[in-house]
């Protein structure tokens, strides 16, 4: 700025002055500027200083918002004043020019107020009294005086500069202060800028916490650290608070090297924590414990292998898996949180992936072997379950089936039919698919199997019978079939499991063996019965002795009662022995019957003997035994006496029957021996013929040698047996002995052995010739033995008939004698001598007693002569006895009457003998059963015819009261026929009723029905009820025949509702549906297959149809 006046003053004072004024104004501006700058610097310095001070105060004091606000407001006001003073006022009120002039004059010596004058005088220039010129001169002078002066120098810049320096100083100081407390200062400044904000004074101790807020997996450990600064205390407090809780739990933690550390192991739950140390409390931090996925529930679903047919099983408490191999196991695990992935991890490294649905895992695996596995889960945030439970997979074994042979359940023998009836029971956990018989013939034979068709394949338990036919096994007598039953289960996955029975042997015994064993058994039975008979006699004697003692002593002593008890025990033992005998007899019969050693007649006889033996133990005997037992406990001797009498009386009958049984059994035994010999010889012949045929058919002789060897052995045995039989059996005309001689002469065993050697040597022709000759001879001898059998039976029959004939005659003679006695006793004209008559009666009585004995003997030879046949005779004897007594007492009339009664009884006995003879003559077997059946059949036939006639007359008009007016005789004739049939039936019942018991007893009602029908028909009353009644009659008669025949073989049968029986037949129909059996049809099919033209085929078909038809109407076999 140029503030110096120009050197040449203007000519115009005004101008000069103006220039001066401008100069002064410039000085004034400079001055104002300096003042402003200086003021500004001061203001700023003050501001900075105040700020520094304030910051300092704030740093220390943490002023409350109110204080801060007031302070700031005051400072602001102060600042405003300062700004007014230092900034505004210099500008607003600049220095006057006069002051400026004086400032300049003060800066420059020598001016002497020239400038002031110049400024002041100007205003007075025009004032009165003021010299203008003077004024001008002063102005000029001032101008001139100051012309060279630097007006600017008049302005003192020092204060401004000083202010500037102070400002700089203050700034520097402030900066330094800030540098010294960088945080504090800034913080304080920050707080000051927020005068309303409340700020807390910083603590002495500062804590730095790690990890602060964090997330971890439940179960993980957590390391908490607090680093202290400032005032570091010796220990710190770790405070935790569980979610939802308001209380903190504190843990003292020592502070070492400014660090407080604490480790929380296995954090399970989320919590909040904070540290406290000295005056510091850290902020609360949140630790989130994120749970690992775990299995909450486990469901195991078992789908068993199809073969087990087990239903699915669901185990809702799933865990370890225990299942059959092949079972599909589906695990369904529900986790505690949503899953992203899951799998089953097996210990062998196998991983079975599962499917995940929300929080549920489903995984399936097949049980193959024992294993262990864990269920692995991964949740949606990637956390896996830790330490999962190890589950086990246990494999259950499909146990092999068990099979037990129920029948025979041991070693057995083959019967004639070569059939082995087997009953077995199989059990398996799931089912048996098949059963087979594994067998071999003899120890060294090849292993073979025979399948068994199961009735219920696949059933877990079944009991089944099977008939194993060994007829095709070419067994030879003496061969053994070693077999076992083998069952296979239905396990198609790991099986089949196999179960086996132990080995059993079924032996093909020779007939000789069977015969010998059975004979022995029967001998034993006979011996046993004889012993029983003897014991029974002794027992009877003992009881009679006791009875006498009781009578004599008029009281039963303790010894008597003991005797009775002992006797009764013996009686029971006897009865048991008889039962045993029955069983032994049954067994022997069955064995021989199975082997075909017995003819039906002999079987029938044995059956009768068996019945007799059974009937020995009568209920009456039991009852009386019990009565005596009861009486023995009583004191009353009369009761004991009475009971003993009754029992001994029954024992007599028992004894009699027992004797008869033994006698019959012995007779049967002989017949049985003949039967067996005949069967064995027939078998020998048949086998020999088979061998011959086999050779003829080209079979190698060597292969037949073993069979021939058996023949040799058997024929040798047979020869011995025949020899023994010839000695013991009294065959007619000594024919058995002759046959024995023939057999020996024929040298059958030797020739058989020679033939065997020829076979073994491969000599075909000689073998064949030898076998053929042997077969012929054996055939002949078998025929001869069968003839002897028949002759023997006939001989027995004849003997019996002769015996019965004699009995018949003698009974009639006695009857006539009684008739005479009766007549003589009744004669009034010539009264007989009573004594003489009595003697005669005595003789007759003795004769009757002998007759009774003979009848008893006869009854021991045939079942057709029942002991009851002697009832008439016994009655007669009783009457004769009475008659004798009456004669002795002179009561002749009464004696005559009794003699007549005796005559009737004798007549009855004679009739019984006659009937028995008639029955024996008619009976094929002389035993009676067939005879009875034949008679019943004949009666049924007549009833059938009668029924047809009756039905034929139904609806036809019946001329009442005119019998015989209809063809065939009309209803009265039918009535008579019905009555005749009734009589016939009654005769049958009378004759056989005692033997067949209830079966014929059932016919009693039939007889009544017949009577009713006869009555109705006799009254010409033919209606539907009559016809129905006739039909019922016939049905019952037919049924009775069946029942009786059946009862002959089984005493157990009764008509009753049948129990369900499982199907045991073939599983399927035969492929030919049974239609191919007719050879004509087979030929027809063959012919039709020849592709003849249609018309020929028609003719062929007609031809064969006719042939078939003709064949069909061939007379049927009865």
């Amino acid at each position: 700025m140029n503030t110096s006046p120009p050197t040449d003053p203007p000519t115009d004072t005004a101008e000069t002055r103006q220039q001066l004024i401008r100069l002064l104004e410039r000085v004034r501006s400079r001055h104002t500027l300096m003042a402003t700058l200086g003021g500004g610097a001061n203001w700023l310095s003050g501001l900075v200083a105040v700020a520094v001070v304030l910051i300092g105060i704030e740093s220390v004091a943490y002023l409350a918002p109110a204080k801060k606000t007031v302070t700031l407001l005051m400072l602001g006001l102060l600042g405003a004043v300062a700004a007014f003073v230092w900034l505004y006022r210099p500008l607003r009120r600049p220095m006057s020019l006069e002051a400026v002039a004086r400032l300049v004059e003060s800066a420059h010596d020598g001016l002497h107020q020239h400038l002031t004058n110049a400024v002041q005088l100007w205003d007075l220039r025009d004032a009165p009294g003021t010299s203008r010129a003077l004024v001008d001169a002063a102005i000029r002078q001032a101008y001139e005086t100051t012309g060279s002066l630097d007006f600017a120098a008049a302005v003192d810049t020092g204060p401004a500069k000083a202010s500037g320096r102070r400002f700089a100083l203050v700034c520097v100081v402030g900066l330094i202060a800030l540098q010294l407390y960088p945080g504090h200062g800034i913080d304080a400044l920050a707080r000051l800028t927020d005068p309303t904000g409340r700020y807390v004074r910083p603590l002495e101790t500062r804590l730095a916490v790690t990890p602060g807020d964090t997330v971890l997996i439940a179960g993980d450990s957590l390391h908490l650290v607090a680093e202290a600064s400032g005032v570091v205390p010796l220990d710190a407090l770790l405070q935790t608070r569980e979610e939802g809780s308001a209380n903190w739990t504190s843990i003292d933690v020592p502070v070492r090297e400014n660090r407080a550390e604490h480790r929380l192991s296995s954090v399970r739950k989320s919590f909040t924590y904070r540290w406290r140390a000295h005056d510091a409390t850290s902020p609360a931090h949140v630790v989130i414990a994120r749970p690992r996925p775990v299995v909450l529930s486990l469901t195991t679903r078992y789908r068993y292998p199809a073969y087990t047919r087990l239903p699915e099983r669901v185990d809702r408490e799933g865990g370890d898996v225990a299942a059959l191999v092949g079972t599909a196991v589906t695990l369904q695990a529900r986790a505690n949180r949503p899953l992203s992935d899951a799998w089953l991890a097996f210990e062998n490294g196998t991983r079975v992936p599962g499917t995940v649905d929300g929080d549920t895992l489903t995984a399936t695996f097949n049980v193959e072997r024992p294993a262990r596995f864990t269920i692995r889960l991964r949740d949606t945030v990637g956390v896996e379950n830790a330490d999962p439970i190890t589950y086990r997979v246990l494999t259950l074994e499909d146990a092999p089936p068990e099979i037990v042979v129920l029948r025979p359940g041991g070693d057995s023998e083959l019967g004639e039919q070569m059939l082995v009836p087997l009953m077995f029971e199989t059990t398996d956990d799931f089912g048996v698919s098949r059963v087979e018989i594994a067998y071999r013939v003899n120890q060294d034979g090849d292993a073979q199997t025979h399948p068994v068709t199961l009735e219920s394949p696949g059933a877990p338990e079944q009991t089944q019978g099977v008939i194993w036919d060994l007829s095709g096994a070419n067994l030879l007598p003496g061969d053994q079939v070693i077999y076992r039953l083998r069952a296979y289960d239905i396990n198609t996955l790991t099986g089949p499991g196999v179960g086996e029975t132990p080995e059993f042997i079924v032996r093909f015994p020779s007939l000789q063996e069977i015969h010998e064993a059975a004979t022995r058994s029967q001998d034993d039975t006979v011996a046993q019965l004889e012993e029983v008979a003897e014991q029974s006699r002794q027992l009877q004697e003992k009881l009679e002795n006791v009875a006498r003692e009781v009578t004599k002593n008029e009281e039963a002593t303790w010894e008597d009662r003991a005797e009775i008890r002992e006797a009764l025990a013996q009686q029971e033992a006897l009865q048991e022995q008889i039962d045993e005998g029955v069983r032994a007899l049954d067994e022997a019969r069955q064995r021989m019957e199975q082997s075909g050693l017995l003819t039906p007649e002999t079987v029938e006889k044995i059956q009768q003997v068996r019945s007799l033996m059974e009937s020995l133990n009568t209920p009456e005997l039991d009852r009386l035994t019990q009565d005596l037992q009861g009486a023995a406990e009583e004191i009353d001797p009369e009761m004991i006496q009475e009971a003993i009498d009754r029992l001994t009386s029954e024992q007599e009958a028992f004894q009699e029957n027992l004797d008869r049984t033994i006698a019959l059994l012995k007779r049967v035994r002989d017949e049985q021996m003949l039967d067996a010999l005949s069967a064995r010889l027939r078998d020998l012949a048949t086998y020999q013929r088979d061998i011959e045929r086999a050779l003829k058919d080209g079979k190698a002789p060597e292969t037949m040698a073993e069979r021939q060897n058996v023949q040799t052995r058997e024929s040798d045995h047979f020869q011995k047996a025949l020899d023994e039989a010839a000695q013991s059996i009294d065959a007619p005309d000594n024919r058995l002995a002759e046959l024995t001689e023939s057999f020996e002469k024929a040298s059958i065993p030797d020739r058989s052995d020679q033939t065997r050697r020829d076979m073994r040597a491969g000599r075909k022709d000689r073998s064949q010739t030898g076998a053929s000759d042997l077969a012929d001879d054996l055939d002949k001898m078998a025929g001869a033995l069968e003839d002897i059998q028949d002759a023997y039976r006939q001989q027995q029959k004849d003997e019996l008939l002769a015996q019965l004939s004699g009995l018949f005659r003698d009974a009639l003679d006695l009857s006539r004698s009684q008739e005479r006695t009766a007549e003589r006793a009744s004669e009034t004209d010539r009264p007989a001598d009573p004594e003489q008559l009595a003697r005669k009666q005595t003789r007759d009585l003795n004769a009757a007693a002998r007759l009774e004995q003979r009848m008893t003997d006869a009854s021991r030879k045939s079942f057709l002569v029942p002991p009851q046949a002697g009832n008439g005779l016994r009655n007669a004897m009783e009457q004769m006895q009475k008659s004798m007594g009456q004669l002795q007492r002179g009561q002749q009339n009464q004696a005559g009457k009794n003699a007549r009664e005796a005559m009737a009884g004798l007549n009855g006995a004679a009739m019984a003998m006659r009937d028995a003879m008639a029955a024996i003559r008619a009976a094929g077997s002389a035993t009676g059963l067939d005879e009875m059946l034949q008679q019943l059949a004949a009666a049924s036939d007549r009833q059938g015819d009668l029924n047809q006639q009756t039905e034929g007359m139904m609806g036809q008009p019946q001329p009442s009261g005119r019998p015989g007016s209809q063809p065939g005789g009309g209803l009265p004739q039918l009535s008579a026929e019905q009555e005749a049939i009734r009589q016939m039936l009654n005769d049958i019942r009378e004759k056989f009723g005692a033997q067949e018991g209830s079966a014929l007893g059932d016919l009693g009602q039939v007889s009544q029905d017949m009577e009713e029908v006869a009555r109705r028909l006799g009254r010409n009353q033919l209606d539907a009820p009559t016809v129905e009644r006739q039909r019922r009659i016939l049905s019952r008669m037919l049924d009775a025949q069946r029942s009786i025949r059946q009862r002959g073989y089984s005493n157990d049968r009764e008509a009753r509702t049948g129990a369900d029986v499982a199907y045991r037949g073939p599983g399927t129909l035969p492929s030919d549906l049974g239609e191919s059996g007719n050879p004509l049809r087979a030929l027809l099919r063959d012919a039709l297959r020849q592709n003849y033209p249609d018309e020929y085929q028609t003719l062929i078909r007609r031809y064969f149809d006719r042939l078939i038809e003709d064949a069909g109407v061939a007379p049927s076999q009865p």
Partner: protein
Amino acid sequence: MTFRLAAVLAAVTCLTGPALHAQTDADITADRADLLTIARLKYQGGGDWYNGPTEIPNLLAYIRAHTPIRTATKEARVEILDDAFFSYPITYLTGHGNIRFSDAEVRRLRRYLENGGFLIANDDYGLDAAFRREMDRVFPGKQLVELPPSFDLYRKPFPFDALPKIHEHDGKRPQAFGIFHEGRLVVIYFYESDIGDGWDDPEVHGDPPEKREAALKFGTNTVLWALTH
């Protein structure tokens, strides 16, 4: 005129009735020709062919109640040589005793069976030998083959695992035999079962209800088989 009108009306009723109406009591008691019945075969030989008079009526009633088949209430009775013999698609033979067919009967029975007839035979005990003998005459060479439970007759409409055993007889297992002609079952023979007695009124034999039910069901199966094959 009145008679003619009545006859026409009756004929119309007979022809349309079955199609228009369900079977009513009135219908079934009428035993009309359009109702199924089973003919009891009268035979010679002495056997009681008439045995069990309530068997067939009961079986017919059961069929009527359990199937849509319209059956009569009574049995028919027929001899092989009767003119009406061929009118009955199903015949029933039972009894205890002997059977004897004449040559003419043998021929006619065979023709009947070969041409669609069906014979149900029931051994009431004692019939077996005679029946087999006579059947051998009717169909020489054809065998009575045992019908296994796999045979469809056992299945429909009532399933069976085995032939019911109604009466014990000889205690043997019950068997159903059949004779086939050109693949068709023409004779069924019940042996050791006495299924016929199971059809009788309950008081006749005192059989338990379940036995009777089983017998009637199997009888129904048999009749249905005969009608549909």
